């Protein structure tokens, strides 16, 4: 097992090199650069900044270097634990990411936990009542929800319950109210929860379909196994059969799916963060793309790539941990 993990960790290196190199090449290949955009006009060809000053800025930001040399420089610095400085405000990229991460973890974490908490019981219920009205209703409703684009849902919700012409129950945007800094912990928490209700809902409902389907299929497969028949034959109550024998075994594949969902925690949600003006990772990524802030884009891609690859590895390891019948020897 240890050799397996070590081998997998070694395989991360070429993949990460590929991800960062591809990002760098693509960002560089795009017309315009951070200096032009900061200098006003940018790709649109404005003249807000004198040509000499723009040349100066291009030099300072290192944009005049050969892309491969610049990539090498960036890589060398990353190997020394430095993600570089933002080309927009010269703050360390690591600091910018660290500042945005907590909110995204809040948002995506609650959405993820909620969707599993809702979807697994739905899947189990559908499996127990297989083919009956309950099963068909659940399938239809989660499928319907899955098909609603999250941004259309977000807009309609804002209109209906957050300060539109109808109800005004929840705040429309932001992660906290303006005066959140003066609040003590519990009022702050309440304020935060109110701000999170709509975005978290918009990030939750669509994922119900896949998780409930997985748990339904997994339950059905387990229910068809011999040991369930044995459990029933020895006279256990249906409740015991479902909760103790079936559910526990059926949840094994769900754990690995959970691990595969983990990368979403870091990447954030560009669209939902944009709509609700939440300063999270998705928004940082979007504004960096707009400003051609190369090092910030690279930093986010690298962090997201590492987390994604580690989650894949974790999923494979969890397979073995929860099911001793599988080995990678």
């Amino acid at each position, binding site marked *: 097992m240890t050799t397996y993990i070590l081998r997998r960790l070694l395989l991360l290196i070429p993949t990460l090199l590929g991800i960062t190199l591809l990002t760098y090449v693509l960002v560089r290949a795009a017309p315009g650069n951070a200096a032009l955009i900061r200098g006003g006009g940018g790709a649109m060809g404005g003249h807000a900044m004198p040509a000499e000053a723009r040349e100066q800025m291009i030099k300072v930001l290192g944009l005049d270097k050969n892309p491969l040399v610049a990539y090498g420089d960036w890589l060398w610095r990353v190997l020394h634990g430095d993600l570089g400085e933002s080309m927009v405000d010269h703050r360390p990229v690591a600091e910018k990411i660290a500042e945005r991460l907590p909110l995204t973890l809040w948002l995506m974490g609650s959405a993820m936990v909620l969707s599993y908490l809702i979807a697994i019981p739905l899947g189990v219920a559908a499996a127990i009542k297989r083919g009956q009205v309950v099963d068909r209703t659940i399938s239809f409703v989660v499928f319907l929800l899955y098909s609603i*684009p999250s941004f259309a849902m977000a807009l309609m919700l804002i209109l209906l319950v957050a300060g539109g012409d109808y109800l005004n129950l929840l705040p429309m945007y932001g992660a906290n109210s303006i005066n959140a800094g003066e609040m003590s912990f519990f009022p702050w928490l309440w304020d935060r929860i109110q701000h999170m209700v709509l975005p978290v809902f918009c990030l939750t409902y669509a994922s119900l379909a896949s998780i409930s389907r997985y748990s339904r299929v997994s339950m059905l497969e387990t229910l068809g196994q011999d040991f369930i028949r044995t459990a029933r034959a020895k006279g256990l109550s249906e409740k015991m059969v479902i909760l103790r024998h079936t559910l526990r075994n059926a949840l094994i594949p769900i754990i690995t799916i959970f691990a595969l969902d983990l990368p979403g925690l870091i990447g954030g949600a560009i669209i939902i963060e944009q709509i609700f003006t939440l300063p999270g990772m998705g928004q940082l990524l979007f504004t960096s793309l707009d400003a051609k802030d190369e090092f910030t884009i690279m930093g986010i891609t690298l962090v*997201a790539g590492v987390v994604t690859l580690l989650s894949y590895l974790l999923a494979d390891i969890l397979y073995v941990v929860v099911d001793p019948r599988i080995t990678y020897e």
Partner: protein
Amino acid sequence: MTTRGHDIQHEGYWQRIGRRFKSNPYGLAALRIILALFLMAALAPFLANSHALVRVANGQTEFPIFRSMEPIEWRFLIYVPLAAAVYFMRRYAGKLLPFPVVTAVIVLAVTETALGFTHPVNDPTNDRDFAGYRLMPPIPWSPVESSPDQFAPPSRKHWCGTDYTGRDIAARMVHGARTSLSIGFVAVSIALLVGVTVGGLAGYYRGWLDMAICRIIEVLDCFPPLLLILVVIGVFDSQNNMFVIMAVIGLTSWTGLARLVRGEFLRLVAQPFPQAAKALGAGDLHIIVRHLLPNALGPILVSATFGVASAILIESSLSFLGFGMQAPTPSWGDILSDARIYIDFAWWLAFFPGLAILVTIMSYNFVGEALRDAVDPRMKLK
């Protein structure tokens, strides 16, 4: 009278899938909705236009609608009889349409749609106030025509209301269907070509090629959602270009298909029939195209159907973020992105395009779902 057993013996793979698909009422209904949407897209100039279908002036009968139509709109019309021909010839489809022909037709359709797409021109003339006899289309507004009625809520005059320059939303929705539907279709065709080729090569040849391809797929899968698309779109100068959007969505969404095809090929190569073909002296290409691909086509089709739904969603997300098709070109995502600014009062700007996207995506998902059940031989149907 033939016996039932005799019939079943002669039922081919696709006939069986077709029969099983038809037994699913949701899937069938969804398929009909998609066909209706395509029909609406093809006939868009006849459904929403500021020019009259027929008008009579001074005893002269004129058809102004045809004069106002652009070449591309004529080309869209060709698809209607073409689709009807395919529908009535479907019985012979198995014999007439082997894989290379299908591929050629898809490639042709891709280039045709992409090259032929033009942005609508604002034509200020209209026949709404024409004095003599006139027969207007059901929606007497063109999609790019501004009017003084800004932000009119839905009424008899404007079925779905108007936007900030007084453009009729119903007309924009009907014409916008072209953008969404053709982008979904073409992007997935591109993804299919790349994904099937790459995945097929990896699964058939294995070894170092497989290793390299798997690394590439892993690299592409590691990007956070939308990031890769946004970065690639940034490379192109003219973002408001249908072909760029189609190509970028297609070229960034083939990895799932490639994984699927690779897995299917790995499974199929180990079976006796490709080995028998090889023993008879068949070349690699022949084995891949004639023996492996037809056997993997079911799951590929299912995955492609879901792919269309997600491509439509991605396109509308991109327009929403300001990267996809933008005004004046009508697109559902673009109407929604206008809605974001005026959401406190103009609910119709969000509701109607949102509903259109929902219906389209849900139909594709239901068709995919029904196809999945039809293709899976383990699945028992009532």
